[in-house]
């Protein structure tokens, strides 16, 4: 018996699948980055269609320049945590700018989006009397936040406010705080939550709502403020979490709220207090990207045009898609083996997407997850559609 025994069966399964294809889908290394939508992998240029670079700002000139200046002026790292010795004026400024942009009163910046959810949930809910209710398809960091909190956690059916309603009704009177956690757009299928209905159900039962807009910030809503803006309930969301690692093209995370008590997290949230703050370059890049989102809606327009084009093309090719049009377009595969084969086929045809297999996917499905970027050119999208056309022919034969 050893510590490693527990990995054996998963490792065997994984190795067999990788051996049957030429590449390891979870070990792709981008040898050279040519831009937001292109990279060189093993000497071959491929189109990147499996990122979270929705607005395509990883090479935005203002963001790149701001990051360079920040390094010159403030150094490469803060060497300290937000709580103790790693809060610079730039962290505070970004908190203010995010709050102002989204229309919340308070904002706290964390080192990643993972830590923002972990930190908010674990600090807000405490055993034995608080209860957390989470959508079954929530991201790992929401599950981990529940575990770190130790509070009783109940799952409800994905995107099903009635299922939440039932579970809230069943709670007994001894329960004190109730925290409901959902996401705006879900990362694997690209499906979107009925946020307005969830707000109504949660508040009717005296619960508070945490909404993770990691994938929808900058993407949904007239001002890019997320699904809650689109649904007209932004001001009703109790805790709005997000990340810099997708549309803001950097690294870091945040929690926003209109509750003044949010500030208590600064001395009670361990994932805020005990890890180094984002580096000056990360903060400067995120702040520049935020400014661009606030001032310029054209990236969002291009993103949705590109998403519509791909969704329509895949529908026409007869692929089974997991959701309505959104910047994440997931194609359902028959099983793991077919998904591995198809993923490899697309790489051979110069297109990188994400292979996602159970247990990381909802309903034990195997999918090819494609994400569209505002930076995708017509040429990029032609290559994507070409590769999927060839794939549909290969699957049919």
């Amino acid at each position, binding site marked *: 018996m050893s510590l490693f025994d527990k990995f054996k069966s998963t490792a065997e399964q994984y190795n067999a699948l990788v051996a049957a294809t030429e590449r390891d889908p979870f070990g792709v290394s981008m040898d050279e980055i040519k831009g937001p939508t292109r990279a060189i992998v093993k000497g071959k240029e491929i189109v990147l269609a499996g990122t979270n670079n929705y607005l395509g700002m990883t090479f935005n000139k203002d963001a790149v320049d701001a990051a360079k200046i920040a390094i010159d002026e403030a150094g490469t790292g803060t060497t300290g945590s937000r709580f103790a010795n790693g809060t610079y004026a730039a962290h505070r400024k970004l908190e203010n700018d995010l709050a102002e942009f989204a229309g919340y009163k308070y904002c706290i910046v964390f080192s990643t989006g993972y830590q923002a959810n972990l930190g908010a949930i674990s600090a807000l809910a405490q055993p034995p009397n608080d209860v957390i209710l989470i959508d079954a398809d929530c991201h790992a960091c929401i599950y981990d936040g529940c575990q770190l909190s130790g509070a009783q956690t*109940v*799952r409800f059916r994905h995107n099903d406010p009635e299922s939440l309603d*039932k579970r809230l009704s*069943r709670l*007994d009177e001894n329960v004190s705080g109730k925290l409901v956690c959902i996401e705006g757009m879900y990362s694997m299928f690209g499906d979107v939550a009925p946020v307005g209905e969830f707000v109504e159900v949660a508040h009717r039962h005296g619960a508070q709502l945490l909404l993770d807009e990691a994938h929808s910030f900058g993407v949904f809503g007239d001002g890019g403020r997320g699904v809650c803006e689109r649904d007209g309930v932004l001001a009703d969301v109790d805790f709005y979490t997000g990340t810099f690692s997708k549309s803001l093209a950097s690294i870091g995370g945040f929690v926003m709220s209109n509750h003044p008590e949010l500030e208590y997290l600064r001395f009670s949230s361990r994932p805020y207090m005990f890890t180094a703050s984002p580096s000056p370059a990360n903060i400067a890049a995120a702040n520049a990207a935020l400014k661009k989102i606030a001032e310029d809606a054209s990236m969002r327009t291009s993103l949705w045009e590109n998403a519509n084009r791909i969704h329509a093309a895949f529908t026409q090719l007869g692929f089974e898609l997991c959701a309505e049009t959104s910047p994440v377009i997931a194609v359902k595969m028959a099983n793991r083996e077919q998904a591995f084969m198809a993923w490899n086929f697309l790489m051979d045809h110069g297109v990188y997407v994400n292979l996602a297999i*159970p*247990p990381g996917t909802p309903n034990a499905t195997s999918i090819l997850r494609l994400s569209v970027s505002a930076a995708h050119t017509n040429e990029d999208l032609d290559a994507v559609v070409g590769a999927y056309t060839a794939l549909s022919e290969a699957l049919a034969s």
Partner: protein
Amino acid sequence: MSGIQEDDDLVFRKIASLIEPLNDKGVKLTRETDMIADLEIDSVSVLDIVMDIEDSYDISIPVNTISEIKTIGELVDAIHDLKKEQS
């Protein structure tokens, strides 16, 4: 051969019938069957089975409880306890 052990407990029979479609290896389902080690059902699928059970019995089974459960018998016992508590 696969099959479900005789048992007059309705909760056991309900759970076994929900698990049977995922029992690819054709293991005989008893109270001692370990859902993850014996049946190789992944942890997320166990949570999904529990969701069906919750809706059938109109109870909520916290994730914290499920993570400590390994065998079908332990799940049956947990449901009996919760049914008493939540009714």
